[in-house]
């Protein structure tokens, strides 16, 4: 089920449960209209965001990836986003050297109360990805067909 042909690009979000996922909920409760491209994956903390999830998403054809968590100092787990910040800064360079424009990746901090800010983040980032257009893709690469996970091992 691809994104809407011609209308949407593929944008994946990794959000922490405590702040940004709540912020996205707050934006919903406030009926703050947003573009429809983004698909959100909920994690407990940005400290759980392995930069390789982001690489995997890009290599699988994502056009943009957004990571959002608690503001520095507000982490529910005290330090998760401090680790995340370092990892994601380093990731930016990896994407760059791999030929994935770093502008396609963004990380930010949005608290559970910042619904209006979340709308802004999503709108700005989606607009930026549309400006960049579809990401570079492999010229001769089949789709992922293998089932992920333990199922495959059986």
């Amino acid at each position: 089920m691809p994104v809407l042909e011609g209308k949407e690009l593929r944008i994946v979000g990794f959000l922490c449960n405590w702040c940004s996922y709540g912020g996205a909920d707050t934006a919903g409760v406030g009926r703050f209209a947003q573009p429809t491209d983004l698909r959100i994956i909920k994690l407990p903390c940005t400290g759980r965001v392995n930069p390789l999830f982001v690489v995997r998403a890009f290599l699988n054809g994502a056009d943009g990836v957004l990571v959002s968590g608690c503001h520095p100092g507000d982490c529910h787990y005290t330090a998760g986003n401090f680790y995340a910040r370092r990892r994601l800064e380093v990731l930016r360079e990896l994407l760059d050297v791999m030929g994935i424009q770093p502008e396609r990746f963004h990380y930010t901090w949005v608290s559970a109360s910042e619904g209006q800010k979340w709308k802004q983040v999503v709108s700005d980032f989606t607009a930026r990805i549309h400006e960049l257009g579809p990401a570079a893709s492999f010229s001769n690469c089949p789709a992922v067909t293998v089932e992920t996970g333990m199922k495959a091992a059986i």
Partner: protein
Amino acid sequence: MVQHTQELRKLIAQALPELDVVLAWTSGSNQLASAPLFITAEDDLDKLDFGPMHVQNLAAYLPSLKGRKVGIVTRGCDSRTIIELLQEKLINRDEITIFGIPCTGAVNIRKVREAADGQRLRSVEAGKDIVSVTTDEGVRTIPMQDVLMEKCYNCPSQTPLIHDHMVTERNGCHMTGEAPESTLDKLDAMEPDARFAFWEESMDRCIRCYACRNACPLCVCKDSCVAQSRDPHWVDLSDNPREKLMFQAIHALHTAGRCTECGECERACPMGIPILAMKQALNRRIKHLFDYEAGMDMENTPPLFMFRQQEEHIKERDAR
């Protein structure tokens, strides 16, 4: 060189009774092939050799020998690997004895082949500043400067940063002139799409032998590498550049802030894929962000295993 080799043999011979094994180099079947030498008895010392043709980073064997008394012949760059392994407690300082040697640079055999215009090499002899190559066409000399390993051009320390014994330091240095253009330089000059295409083309050649990983002294997952596990299942086995590039990204991120750029991954690659560039890019960024270089100080913590509440070089992105 001969005199130094004698000296090194003497040092090792003195220490050998206290050690289970000493890691060193020997010349292989021909001069083009250097091989690791595992010294357990005095007789083995005759085979010991070192010099510009012996490139391998022997420190890669250390984690698997943890718990034994190991001696290791070490150059400046190798010592950074040892420090990094010590930092991460993958080896114990009191179990290793470091025999420091002065280094005048290591020869990149791929570059020698290129310099010989791809002709079959019969023998290679490394001199002080030149490498003489015998091919079917005859003998030619190449300036050492043109065929060094990439890491040698801006080598910060030709003698080990830590050692227990030291072969007399030699004065002088192998560095003169400019380093040739690196893969990273080439990549920097490209547009992103060209970079992506570069990796696609490079990875297309990858045969998934994992020599890069097996040669890397900091790939310590041994049989638990995620490249081949199903739980977690990060990469699949379909033969395409996407999955192979994914593995390179995994390797780069797993060694980010730990990699000392010893170049073993690239050297070991039978397809000559310039995979070191990815790690160099990350290190460059890490140096800028955290003012950190791997393998310089045993007391340091690799930068991705720590944080500061206020990161000096990270814009507090969208702080409230």
